[in-house]
């Protein structure tokens, strides 16, 4: 059922009990059933004792349906949410160090920073470290602009995502053991 061709990216948000081994269960489910994890973010959630896992994956609709159901079947998973379309907000963080050997390079960098709304975190005589946040696509574009300036090092986080305020009720979710039709 897994598709070879690159297909649509899907964001899945999982609320799981913060217990040893639970993340391994989720990750193992993906590898064991031949699904791919493009990115993975895990941290505490607002609910005590719960972790929020936000992961992105790819697949045709039947594969995504299976992923949602299989994750939902995990005993300590409380909620699984499939975030798609306009119903959610998404942010990814990127930190990048750029060489700035001369004034011209610094000017060029300043222009990009202004244009993209990124922020300087640290600098030295020869390099600037800049952070940018945005959707994964925003970050892709940011990196396209900044790459020609001479990137020395780069790290990007997994995207995190949340239902847009007010759309929670309408956001598509997998009901626990619900009827799917």
């Amino acid at each position, binding site marked *: 059922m897994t598709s070879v061709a690159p297909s649509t990216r899907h964001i899945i948000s999982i609320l799981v*009990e913060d217990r*040893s081994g639970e993340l391994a269960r989720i990750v193992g489910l993906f590898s064991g059933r031949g699904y791919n994890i493009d990115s993975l973010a895990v941290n505490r959630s607002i609910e005590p004792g719960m972790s929020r896992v936000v992961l992105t994956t790819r697949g045709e609709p039947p594969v995504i*349906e299976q992923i949602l*159901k299989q994750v939902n*079947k995990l005993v300590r998973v*409380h909620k699984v949410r499939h975030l798609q379309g306009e119903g959610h907000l998404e942010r990814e963080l990127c930190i990048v160090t750029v060489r700035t050997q001369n004034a011209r390079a610094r000017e060029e960098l300043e222009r990009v920073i202004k244009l993209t709304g990124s922020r300087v975190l640290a600098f030295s005589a020869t390099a600037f470290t800049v952070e940018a946040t945005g959707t994964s696509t925003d970050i892709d574009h940011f990196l396209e602009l900044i790459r020609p300036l001479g990137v020395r090092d780069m790290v990007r986080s997994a995207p995190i995502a949340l239902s847009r305020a007010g759309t929670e009720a309408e956001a598509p979710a997998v009901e626990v053991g*619900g009827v*799917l*039709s």
Partner: protein
Amino acid sequence: MQGSRIVLDQLDKDASAPSSARRNQSSPPARQNEPVAPGATVQSSALDLSTAPVLRGARIVVESLIQEGVDLIFGYPGGAILHVYDELYKVQDRLRHVLVRHEQGAVHAAEGYAQSTGKVGVAMVTSGPGATNVVTGLQNALMDSTPIVVISGQVATTLIGNDAFQEADIVGITRPCTKYNYLVKRVEDLAPTIKEAFYLARSGRPGPVLIDIPKDITANTTAFSYPEKVELASYKPTIKGHPLQVKKAVDLIRQFDKAVLYIGGGVVTAGAEREVMELSRRMNLPVTPTLMGLGAFPPSDSRSLGMLGMHGTYTANMAMAKADLIINIGARFDDRVTGRVDKFAVNAKKIHVDIDPSSVNKTVMVDVPIVGDAKHVLQQMLEMLPDEKPPERSAWWAELREMQRRYPLRYKDRTDCIMPQRFFEELASLTQGRYICSTDVGQHQMWAAQYYPVANGRNWLTSGGLGTMGYGLPAAVGAALNGTKEPVLCVTGDGSFQMCIQELATCVQENLNLKILVMNNRFLGMVRQWQELLYDRRYSEVGLKYFPDFVKIAEAYGATGFRAEKPEELRAVMEKGLNTPGTVLMDIIVHKETNVFPMIPGGAAHYEILLGPEDDEQKDAQPRELA
């Protein structure tokens, strides 16, 4: 002995049953499928620390098992689980332990016990190699949805991660082959963990649960009170079907003429045999069981088409191919049933009743999914179907009857050697299918499925999903210890039998009324069959060039052995074997190169059925392709 230096054995402060334990004994274990309210994880039964007895972990393990209603466990001791075995010694009168000869045997025995009784089977093993030996059994139970709990010893918490003697990360190893598993890190967590493990094993879609207990946890002490119920907010199996979906299903059953009821192991698990019978009767529906559903519908009933799937009957498979409506109750569109999935029942509307939402639309897209317990959903359906004159479906039945007439199960008998099918016919005629029958995996399993008239689903023990050679004998051990007075049959092959042959010792040790029938063709028959049909008879490593004398093996273990080599002695040998007390092995030497037919080759569509040589002459031209 590893681990024991960490914590000195605590004094057993209360060797007798704790007062709270006695008090709670009357309350039965939580019933399977009972819906639970959301809330806290585990509710303790008004734990009064001042009166609750203080016990060490090992004692808590055995008291918890007893309170869970367990009276029999299968296991094998070792260093890390020694404290618990010490407690087992003290409670022998309340909790019986059966010593197997290999940990794999313990798990299969627990499965056989669980499958034959509907209760949770329990196995206990030590750390490291003891624990890794249970992996096959766990995966087997996972795939066949059998409720078992396995308790494994672990090295002391202070040694975990140190590559200690007999250490294995068994929770990591068994994560994908259990429904859930635990590493208990505090003695206070023991009782609630055991309570929850049993609840998970038996509820929803049942399955295996493993509890890994470090040695120091079994030595530490705490106040013991067994929780009365489990509440897991994140785990709520759906029991009742959605009424609108049930209505849609019932409308389809009324509307479509060429309908088939396709039933699986879920019917046995839910105990929904009567409801299946009632639905079939009221709506005049033909019924075909899967390998796991055998016995859920009487094979003698006129509406039974026999088993479907790779070695199912011609009629059952063609009924699925020609149907305009398939009603799947508690089966999972396994690849052994569907064949090539894009050619599977393309014209049929499909209804799928399953308690596991992830089984729905997994391989085959269905029109009406219903998530719920088979028994409840069928009752909901029956409420909407008044008991009036059943529809005739006359054209459909005529078509099915004609197929049954033309292509029954058949074979050419011989006088110079015993045909395997003949052996199974004799077994059916001698027993009428009334005994519990376990099988191993391979040709004999398929012939047993075709010819043994399983009287009810709990009488049929077979490894369906995983296809585990070696399952049969220990599973029969588990079933024979379930309190039955009847003999238990273990039908096996000369290949499979040798995979857990050591459990003969357990059979004799427990003086089991077990009748082992080895269908001996001196081949790994099913693999040989595939090599004959699909690899131009290049028999690669399937001829058992050396095979032991099974009769002598039986005798060496202290069992009784008989052999039948000629057709004329077959029945007499089987009669004698079945009527001899204790554990009896019958070595039935059969024709070496008989194939199991019908057969849907792997990757072929489910209507591309190979029939035996007897049928070929008169068979309609069907598309043939061997994948």
